[in-house]
């Protein structure tokens, strides 16, 4: 009796389709990934066990460290509009180029009177620039007060959403800096903040 021969099949599979899918996903993730924005000053945020996700858009982040306050708001369109409004308030005319530069900055800490000069610098020079922070000295009419206020108005007009205000503070920063900042924000009836923190596990 002749033996039944089972033809040996090759174990190699066609990988083309799998490869296509993998690269499609890869492209998607690369394109959607947001480049990590550097903090204007080194900030060591304290860690908490209980926290919530911060939304990605309609957020203004106030970075606090070394007694200085830096301001940044999400969204290029919002930033452009914001600079326009602030320019009008302080009677400073910003050129379209300056607006484009400003829209690309994630955060800044410059007196508005020096902002024109700051925007004219090259990206490398801007990194070296010794920022003094946004003036917060007089809490009622300080520049920070108006930056936050205008940012809220612009966000409301553009996206019809309430601007969330997040504070990212250095753990070793003394409390009076925050007391001042919070007072300025409470002047415009902002009573709810998000404090950006690191994650730590819940202790048992």
């Amino acid at each position, binding site marked *: 009796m002749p033996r039944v021969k089972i033809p040996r099949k090759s174990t*190699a599979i066609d*990988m*083309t389709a*799998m*490869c296509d899918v*993998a*690269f499609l*996903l*890869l492209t998607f*993730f*690369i394109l*959607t*990934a*947001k480049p*990590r924005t550097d903090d204007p000053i080194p900030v060591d945020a*304290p860690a*908490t*066990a*209980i*926290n*919530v*996700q*911060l939304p*990605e858009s309609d957020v203004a982040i106030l970075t*606090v460290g070394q007694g200085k306050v830096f301001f940044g708001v999400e969204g290029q369109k919002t930033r452009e509009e914001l600079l326009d409004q602030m320019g009008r308030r302080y009677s400073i005319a910003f050129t379209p180029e300056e607006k484009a530069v400003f829209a690309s900055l994630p955060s800044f800490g410059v007196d508005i009177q020096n902002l024109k000069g700051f925007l004219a610098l090259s990206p490398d020079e801007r990194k070296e620039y010794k920022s003094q922070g946004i003036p917060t000295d007089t809490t009622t009419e300080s520049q920070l007060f108006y930056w936050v206020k205008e940012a809220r108005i612009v966000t409301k007009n553009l996206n019809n959403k309430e601007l969330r205000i*997040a504070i*990212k*503070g*250095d*753990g*070793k*920063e*003394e*409390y*009076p*800096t*925050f*007391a001042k900042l*919070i007072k300025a924000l*409470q002047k415009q*009836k902002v*009573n*709810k*903040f*998000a*404090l*950006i*923190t*690191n*994650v730590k596990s*819940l*202790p048992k």
Partner: protein
Amino acid sequence: MAELDTSGGGKKGGGKVRTKKKSTRVDLTAMVDLAFLLVTFFMLTTTLNKPKAMDLTMPDKDEIKKDEKPVPESRTLTILLGKDNKIEWYRGLPGVPYKGQAPTTDNFGKDGIRKTLFDLKKTIEEESGGKPMIVLVKPSDKSVYRNMVDIMDELNIAKIEIRAIVDILPLEIELLKRDGNY
């Protein structure tokens, strides 16, 4: 593919030289491996990079609340934040020890303020018949931001909902000074 053809040589002279038809298939396994590795990497880094935050609600300053009731002294705990991560707490009204309990100096940590909060929450709820404890946090000028965040986190862990950050009184600064926490 990478082998050397050593069998050549012998058949010289006879017949045509035939070039072998090679398959155009490439082994994609390694490429797929790499692609998925990168996909995993990007997936993990994008989700982990999202900032986390803790919500903080401050009491409204100028709004006049009509239904505002005086804070019952028996259910109130005041936490003062001093220098060098020190805490001082007392129950009742400032300057008036509640049932003769003197202010206590405490520290952050498992056996420090966390235990205190859990114990006090229980005691106060038992004493008042299930009514919640009210916590006032008063950071002094000598405290740092981390202390404020830590104490709010402890309150979150202890699930104490009624709390507020309030300005410190001169009387309380004196108290901190007396106990060497300012």
